[in-house]
């Protein structure tokens, strides 16, 4: 078992570099994204925040290749991307596990061969190796998201796209998951793009926090706090407050 874990860690890959230029997405008459320019370095952890409906999820789905761009380009590792990138994995707000497959079969989904060993190693990384042969219906929400994370990790992705994966979890489970994601990111060095509406989460995890408002980037803030950031710390609170007041446009409770 230990040898298998080591194998996964050694073969960890480096992240994908992302460049988007003048990215536009229109649904019929309605323009959702108005020319986004964003550059992300390999291995960087970027958190995207914004109110619901601001276009942040659409941006992520464009990067994942799940939607077609209307105009502009997405360049991944110097190549213009078309469709679903083989080294990118996406995690959704719901775990989207196949209910008719056991936990380990879900993790092994789409693996070519040597399925069980690799899947078990990935499950071990998220701490769920002992639930391998259970049905997803018997897991809690947080455990399901951990299985979904293992399913993404088993492919050794170079880009992890997280579409509010912790949004439906309770506060304590969410903090646990944040630690887990941070640890795995540090181990594997992939690029992470996290879309969230939780500013504290963005400041906890992101190297950068990007704010999207009505389809445009209005803030791109570097977070220079040392890792294992503590929510109570004064600098943390200051940064969180800064982003939050920007999101809310200075009005905490509008009259």
């Amino acid at each position, binding site marked *: 078992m230990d040898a298998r874990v080591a194998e996964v860690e050694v073969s960890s890959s480096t992240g994908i570099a992302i460049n988007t230029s003048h990215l536009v997405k229109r649904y019929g008459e309605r323009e959702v994204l108005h020319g986004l320019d964003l550059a992300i370095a390999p291995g960087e952890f970027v958190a995207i925040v914004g109110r619901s409906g601001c276009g942040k999820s659409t941006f992520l789905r464009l990067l994942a290749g799940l939607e077609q761009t209307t105009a502009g380009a997405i360049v991944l590792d110097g190549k213009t991307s078309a469709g679903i990138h083989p080294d990118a994995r996406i995690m*959704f707000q719901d775990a989207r596990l196949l209910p008719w497959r056991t936990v380990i079969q879900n993790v092994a989904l789409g693996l070519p061969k040597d399925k069980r060993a690799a899947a078990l190693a990935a499950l071990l990384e998220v701490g769920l190796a002992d639930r391998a042969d259970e049905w997803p219906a018997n897991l809690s929400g947080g455990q399901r998201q951990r299985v979904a994370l293992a399913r993404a990790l088993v492919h050794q992705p170079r880009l992890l796209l997280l579409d509010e994966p912790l949004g439906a979890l309770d506060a304590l489970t969410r903090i646990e998951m944040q630690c887990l994601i941070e640890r795995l990111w540090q181990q594997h060095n992939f690029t992470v793009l996290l879309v969230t509406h939780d500013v504290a989460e963005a400041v906890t995890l992101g190297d950068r926090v990007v704010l999207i408002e009505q389809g445009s980037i209005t803030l791109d803030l570097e977070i220079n706090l040392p890792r294992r950031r503590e929510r109570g710390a004064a600098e943390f609170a200051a940064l969180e407050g800064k982003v939050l007041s920007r999101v809310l446009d200075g009005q905490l409770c509008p009259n």
Partner: protein
Amino acid sequence: MSSRTKSFRSDWLLSWLLPVTIVLGWQLAAQAGWLSTRILPAPLDVLKVGVQLASSGELYHHFLASFKRAVTGLLIGGSIGFLLGFVTGLSRLAQNLIDSSIQMVRNVPLLALVPLVILWFGIGEGGKIFLVALAVFFPIYLNTFHGLRSVDKDLIEMGRTYGLSRFALFREVILPGALPSILVGLRMSLGYMWLFLVVAETISANEGIGYMTMNAREFLQTDVMVLGIAIYALLGKSSDVLAGLLERHCLKWHKGYQT
């Protein structure tokens, strides 16, 4: 554990209380002469004639004839229904082409077709199997079509992002997602299968449970008639139990089927 077994046993006893009481009352009424055997024979007499026919091999002969018809009809109608449901469920073009026609035919009361069927197939095996096949076709077709169409789109999207091929996507996501609905269709069609078999066999036949029952009517053998009806009921019940077991096996991942 033991308290659960106990409550299970008392539930079981309770559910059998009413039918057993009715049969006992029936037996008593027949014995006391309140109930003419020309209207209803005593349950014990039905049992006696059952044993008698079974030991002479006659019952087995009729049972086999009915069973063959039912299964042949189910296989023909069921596989056509499944295949068409499959095609229309997966392809818009096929849906536009076929589905509305099938929906139109579905609204024809099938039993109204009986005179035509006799005209087409005569009174041989063909007509009986045709009726059964036609009856099982619709529930299987409709539920296969509906099952394939209502598979969770989010799961399909997930499968695509994980690079599943079209075939793998079908095997891993679409078919298992449609299976609960397909099995409901199978269960419904099993009910229709026996219903239409009875109709077909009572019209005309020279072997089968229905023939046995109709023949008994000619001779006022009410015990054989009730026996025939009881056998139909048993067949219906056992195919339902079988379908239930199949469901429990195929859907063991489903919360509703876990104990």
